[in-house]
């Protein structure tokens, strides 16, 4: 089957993401949902998550650049990001969010800025992998549907 090498690549990618804690058990729930309902769901969810994360990270940057930081708003944003990342199975991002909330609750501006850098880094790594995942899935689908015709 023409898509076999791509499928192998995708499997390797996902396995390494699980092994390195980029993803956790919750992502497996989403995979089950995709298996039950058909392709496209994971791509949709991942895209939604990345959009949310980008938006929140930008917002956090703005908030932390204010002369007087509103730690309440910072916390609310991090809380949201923690929720989204937990729901999608983005383990490392979720863990950094926990750290972030802790320093935020201490009104530690420097700590927050450092945490934001870490989140940015973790998210960027994850985002690249998600993009590869979605591309591979799409290519596999195209090849598989050609095969069937």
């Amino acid at each position, binding site marked *: 089957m023409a898509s076999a090498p791509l499928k192998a690549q995708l499997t390797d990618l996902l396995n390494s993401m699980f092994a390195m804690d980029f993803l956790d058990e919750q992502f497996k729930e989403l995979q089950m*949902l995709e298996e*039950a*309902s058909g392709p496209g769901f994971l791509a949709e*969810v991942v895209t939604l998550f990345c959009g949310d994360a980008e938006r929140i990270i930008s917002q956090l940057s703005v908030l932390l650049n204010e002369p007087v930081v509103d730690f309440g708003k910072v916390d609310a944003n991090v809380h*949201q990001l923690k929720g989204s990342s937990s729901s*999608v199975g983005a383990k490392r991002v979720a863990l950094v969010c926990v750290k972030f909330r802790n320093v935020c609750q201490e009104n530690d501006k420097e700590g927050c800025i450092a945490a934001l850098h870490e989140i940015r880094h973790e998210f960027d790594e994850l985002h690249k992998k998600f993009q590869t995942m979605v591309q591979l899935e799409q290519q596999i689908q195209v090849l598989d549907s050609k095969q069937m015709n």
Partner: protein
Amino acid sequence: MEIATQTPFHVLAVDDSSLERKLIEKLLKTSSYQVTTVDSGSKALEFLGLKEDQKSNASTFPLYQKETKVNLIITDYCMPGMSGYDLLKKIKESSALRDIPVVILSSENVPSRVTRCLEEGAEAFFLKPLKFSDLARLEPHLSKSKDVPEMHNLFKSKMGLMSKRNKRKRGEQDENLHETVGVTGPRLKLTPSD
């Protein structure tokens, strides 16, 4: 399109996050529920036919009717504006709506929050994210709704005494429902004692 021999359960899911709404919708639809999602407590009340603002006549949803009967409301706790707790209160204060079971979803396990919700009449409190294995624990709460007489038969058909119509499909879905995914974190489900 097949004609359903039995009406599926209709769940109204309330969450301000589009990602969460997508997840809940997919989870429930994959398990043969009918789902409506809204992004706020006030939209939920509007859908249910409770208008807060009497001045505005235009409603984005049709008034609550028998055909769109809701068997369960699942709401996020933390939402801007009207919280899940506020929504719960309004539903329980309404004579038309108070019998609809309400389940609260939260990303945080805060005992006082859980107690408050249960005391206000929530059927159960689940931790996010909602999983397949949680659905089995949701169903007993659906059965408390007085308005769905065929409920018992619907449970049976979902649990594997399959209807002729989509034997195989149901079989696959039931496999998923019964598979217990390993749970890593603490999960809390509290129900009021009868």
